[in-house]
């Protein structure tokens, strides 16, 4: 069945079964491999994307449920790591193996859109993704750094 979806502002169509998880359409049909498979049951968050700005685990949502909503993946953040969140990630040297980081970044981005300057408890509550290398402490620092940078930038324009 031919299904149309909008990813990072671009319309795509894929010939897949409607129950196919969004994750595998992104990876196998659209070639967007930044979104990762980790568990397939919505726990680890390696497959996190945003659907109409809302954080979702793409491994447990069927592609047919997307409809007209717009999907944002890691590839849509910025092409050359210029987005403040990505810069903060580099500044804090967050990734180790890096496999979970696409999902972490999408989760952090969704958090900052909702709460521009989150405190520790809000970060705790928002980031349920798993990282096996143990980059958690640096993720916390990078989120705070990105929030600070955005705050300063906004402050300067006032």
């Amino acid at each position, binding site marked *: 069945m031919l299904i149309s979806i909008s990813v990072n502002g671009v319309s795509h169509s894929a010939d*897949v*079964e409607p129950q*196919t*998880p969004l994750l*595998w359409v992104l*990876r*196998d*049909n659209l*070639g*967007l*491999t*930044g*979104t*990762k*498979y*980790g*568990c*397939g*049951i919505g*726990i680890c968050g*390696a497959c996190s994307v945003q659907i109409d700005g809302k954080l979702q685990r793409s491994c447990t949502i069927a592609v047919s449920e997307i409809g007209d909503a717009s999907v944002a*993946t*890691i*590839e849509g*953040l*910025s*092409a*050359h*790591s210029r987005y403040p969140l*990505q810069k903060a*990630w*580099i500044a804090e*040297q*967050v*990734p*180790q*193996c*890096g*496999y*979970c*980081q*696409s999902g972490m*970044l999408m989760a952090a981005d969704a958090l900052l859109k909702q709460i521009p300057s989150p405190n*520790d*408890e809000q*970060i*705790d*509550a928002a*980031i*349920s*993704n*798993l*990282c*096996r*290398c*143990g*980059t*958690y*402490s640096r*993720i916390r620092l990078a989120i705070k750094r990105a929030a600070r940078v955005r705050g300063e930038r906004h402050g300067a324009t006032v």
Partner: protein
Amino acid sequence: MSLTNTGRRLFLKRVAAGGLLIAIPGAAKEFAAATGKFSSTELRGWIRIGSDGIVTFLSNTSELGQGTGTALAQIIANELDLDWNTVRIEMAPIEARYFNPGWDEYATFGSGGVANQFAPLRKAGAQAREMLVSAAARQWGVSPDECDTKAGVMWHQPSGRSSQYAQLVQLTADQPVPENPRLKPREHWSHIGKSLARLDLPAKVDGGAIYGIDVRVPDMLLATIMQCPQFGGRVRSLDARPALAKPGVLHVMDLGDAVAVVADSFWRARQGLDALQPQWDLSQASTHSTPQYMGMLHEAVRQDGALYVPSSSSSEQVLDAYDKAMRSSVDMLDQDFSVPFLGHATMEPMNATAHVTAHSAELWLPTQSQSATQAAVAKALGMPASAVTVHTTLAGGGFGRREELDFALQAAQISKRCGAAVKLIWSREEDTRHDYYRPAAVVRLRAGVDQHGMPVALRIDSACESLYEYTHLGEFRADAKPVDTSAVGKLPNYYQITAIQMRVTSVDAGVPVGFWRSVASSQNVFAYESLIDMLAHRAGRDPYAYRHALLPVGREQAVLDKVADMAHWQKALPQGHGRGIALCRANGSSIATVVELSVNAEAGVKLHKICTVIDCGVAVNPQNIRAQIEGGVIFALSAAFYGEITIQDGAVLQSNFHDYRLVNLADIPVIEVAIVEGADTPTGVGEEAVGPLAPALTNALFAATGQRITSLPLSRAGFNLLAARTPV
């Protein structure tokens, strides 16, 4: 980092891009000469200086998250005076000249990427620099002594002339390679010891990094697999029709001990596999279950296992020394410690892409064992090793799991049978149920104590499965005799204990076991450091002061003192809080950890602070070392609280992250790391933080509650981990 999927195309592009590989005899030559495996004309080529000025470092160490490639490039850049902005990393081809000199393999393990290659890389960098200096001097008609290098540029100070390295590279082709190049003295180090940003990270924050699971080759099919749930079981019968009826499914295969489905997408392959109901022949399968197997281990440590005899000693000497020391003791303490099987749970499940044709094979995969993979695939396909090309991709974690060969052999077999390039991806469930686990183990300790309460004799009886029986398809099985050193690990001989006797019994369960980050330290250090803690309390002494007194002046004592200082050990704690301390020596490094925690009335454990000090000799990239220590601590926390693979009738009960839990971001307290440089060469970093964490944690629990934990994980003892920042 240019680790991409299309190796062949990349190679062509690379040649077209020009530039020259500076080939330098590796300092591994001394080693090679000793083994006779290299001819004196064989050269290593560590770096390529392109005509565009880009300097590519060819790494032989898999990038599993540990950042070794960056550290290795720093070592070269230090001696060669490179402009760091021009440095790139690429994986070296699988050739003998790129083998890690520490073990004569192209492989990544044992925390040996930097430790084994520091000296060879410094020498290689210095040789290349001297060759460039000679080339410049000749071209300019000046003395080499008047030439100097800085940031990829050659300078002739008296005349002010300068030249980019790239312009000089061609002139080095006929230069002799200097035997004894001058190394930079430490006070002039430009790149070693600097917290330079990792070269692999930019691609890891924009989705561009290519892991094994992301590999795409032309006309590639996707496969997934179900291995017999019971270890050792075989396929008895298989009705392929339900899978073949599914859309996109192209092949269904009986692989002997597994069933594979090949389709035009992973999801379709998975749907096909889920439709199958293979019948298994369990006549040769494991029938063990965890409670019964642990009983066998507890029994085994009460027998006399094979005696470990250090190479400098004899069995008579070991036994005499032990008996004598034991006779001088006035008190004795016996304790069993037990730990479960553990999975690696890399975030990227096992996978490999293979394209096997009649006369050759090409593989793209995240692996820690390139040369062994090449050899095993060649053997399985009946081809010479030279017909098998292995491309290393980035790995979504390794921790020892990707030292094994199973997934590569499966991919090759599947590709051969369907006559197409195939990417095999394991589901998380397969990954959890078919790991090469950290062995379940029982370690029984007996200490003889003198009149001052200090241990003078220590007997260690260890029982578990043999790593050598299973790892690399049993290739090292012979090394398990007469005593299996893979399970022995390290004796705690850094303590001043007069005599230590260790005995090992291998008890097979038919469950595959392998190398798991820190290997034997993960169980032994838990036992040793718990026992030392018990002895300290029995002697009525402070656990830190007791350890300090038991250690000679040296690296262990120094890291112990520093970590106690960092953790404000002497400062009184509120009611319900406890601190625990532990240390070990591993892969040449010394490391000590203090955990501070509190426990509420419902056995909820809140971590307040974790301090770790490592002496890893030269710290090549301090910020990355800190990252590895933080990571090791967190890896060990998951194991200590939740880690448990349970066997029932020969099969693993756990299947995914809901029942093989990892700690979350919210669980992690402040982790403070300090680095001590107690030697002039680097030693291990990647694995070392794991060993001391569990005993520091359980010693802290004892301090807080009076309850002594002798069996992991803590969740089984009724403890649960609370978010580190919420009120208890």
